[in-house]
């Protein structure tokens, strides 16, 4: 991505969260995960590509900082489980990287950037089902923008963001986009 096309607050929408706010939201989520899982025992963080993966790594680092314990962290690609494959040209696959112990008997926390229709999470649950049998599955998202099309909710939410379906929410992360921000814009139809 060249510098000129890089999404910037102002031109590509209104900044809803800046880098400091994202950092605070993530550290709150990290604390909540520790609280809800009684210290993060047997917890695995699985990020959904693309931007869920760096978020999962950040959460794992924060939990490491707070509790001094290593939380296994990986990625879960859901492309092959999507329900809209026939509506788009074939997509390139992302990476699935599981911690060495697998997911059996663990509490898996799925991590994604934006929760919208819930279809990505449904696909992630299906993908997870083929990888083993976790004891429990929870969901952490940076932004919940509403408009669910499936009975799915998040356990940990960075920010609830009321939106209209015409709006576009973009999460930018340093690891992928060179800076941190959550933008809300007014065109297109993607999440």
């Amino acid at each position: 991505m060249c510098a000129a096309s890089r999404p910037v607050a102002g031109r590509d929408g209104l900044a809803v969260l800046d880098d400091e706010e994202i950092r605070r939201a993530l550290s709150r989520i990290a604390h909540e995960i520790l609280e809800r899982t009684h210290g993060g025992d047997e917890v695995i963080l699985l990020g959904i590509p693309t931007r869920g993966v760096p978020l999962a790594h950040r959460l794992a680092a924060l939990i490491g900082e707070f509790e001094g314990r290593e939380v296994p962290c990986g990625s879960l690609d859901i492309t092959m489980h999507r329900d809209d494959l026939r509506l788009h040209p074939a997509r390139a696959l992302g990476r699935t990287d599981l911690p060495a112990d697998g997911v059996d008997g663990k509490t898996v926390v799925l991590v994604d950037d934006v929760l919208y229709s819930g279809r990505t999470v449904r696909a992630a649950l299906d993908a997870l089902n083929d990888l083993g049998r976790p004891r429990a599955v929870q969901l952490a998202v940076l932004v919940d923008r509403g408009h669910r099309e499936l009975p799915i909710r998040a356990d940990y939410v960075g920010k609830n963001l009321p939106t209209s379906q015409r709006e576009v929410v973009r999460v930018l992360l340093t690891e992928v986009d060179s800076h941190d921000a959550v933008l809300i814009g007014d065109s297109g139809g993607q999440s």
Partner: protein
Amino acid sequence: MKRHLISAADLTRADAVLILDTAEELAMLADRPIKKLPTLRGRTVVNLFYEDSTRTRISFEAAAKRLSADVINFSAKGSSVAKGESLKDTALTLEAMGADAVVIRHPASGAAHRLAEWVQGSVLNAGDGTHEHPTQALLDAFTIRRRLKGDGGGAAGRAGTRGAGLDGIRVTIVGDVLHSRVARSNVLLLSTLGAEVTLAAPPTLLPLAVGTWPCAVSYDLDTELPKSDVVMMLRVQQERMTAAYFPSVREYSRRYGLDAARMARLPEHAIVMHPGPMNRGVEIAAEVADSARSTIVEQVANGVTTRMAVLYLLLSGTEFPEVAQ
């Protein structure tokens, strides 16, 4: 990517790299308890085989089944083809049954191309006469990239090979190039990916137009071996030979067969490939075929993942314009 896969020449470098990257992700499926994905549920893949084949047919069947497609196997023996049905009529029958993809192997060069004009679905060429066998070239490229550009399949190797071509890798293809669809597809694909390909064969076993191919030609295997990162041995296809192309099998084997002494002339890291089925003792000695440098079994395993990648990319989307990132 195009809708069909008829020739390795149809693939741009970006297409080929996308297929290899997809295959790399799919390769991990082999380590999972459930080796199946729901992606092509409800799609039908027909294996239309007019020629004998073990690994290609089984490989396509396994690939389609791992993606949850329904597979119909059709072999010319025991079908209406034995009663004289033409390829076109068979194709129209398959069309009426709603095949989303047809995998065809046929003894006539160009059969896949003709078939693509008659059916709606995707056509995948699984070998047409002495013309092309593009999925074999793709799995060979995948094997070479894994072995020589990565660390053989570990997590670090996978990350390292993503997006990579085969730039700078020297590949020597040895033997019966004239009758080999594998050789033609490999020359086209490997050169697209940036490899330097040399054909080493007796003059009688090189096609007339070899000068127009994107590769070098040599008649002397021994001078090529020390410069090769990959040696690909071709099967001597005696069933297609209609004339005497070399004086005797023994002489061929002495000049162009890969035995242990010749293998010792290869660089330390070089690998030995063979598309199978092998004639042990003719183009490749048994001790070479079973050595650690030989990737022959690996090629079969990689065949399934590579064909899964191709089926996924051709069949999963709507129409077949540019691939979304």
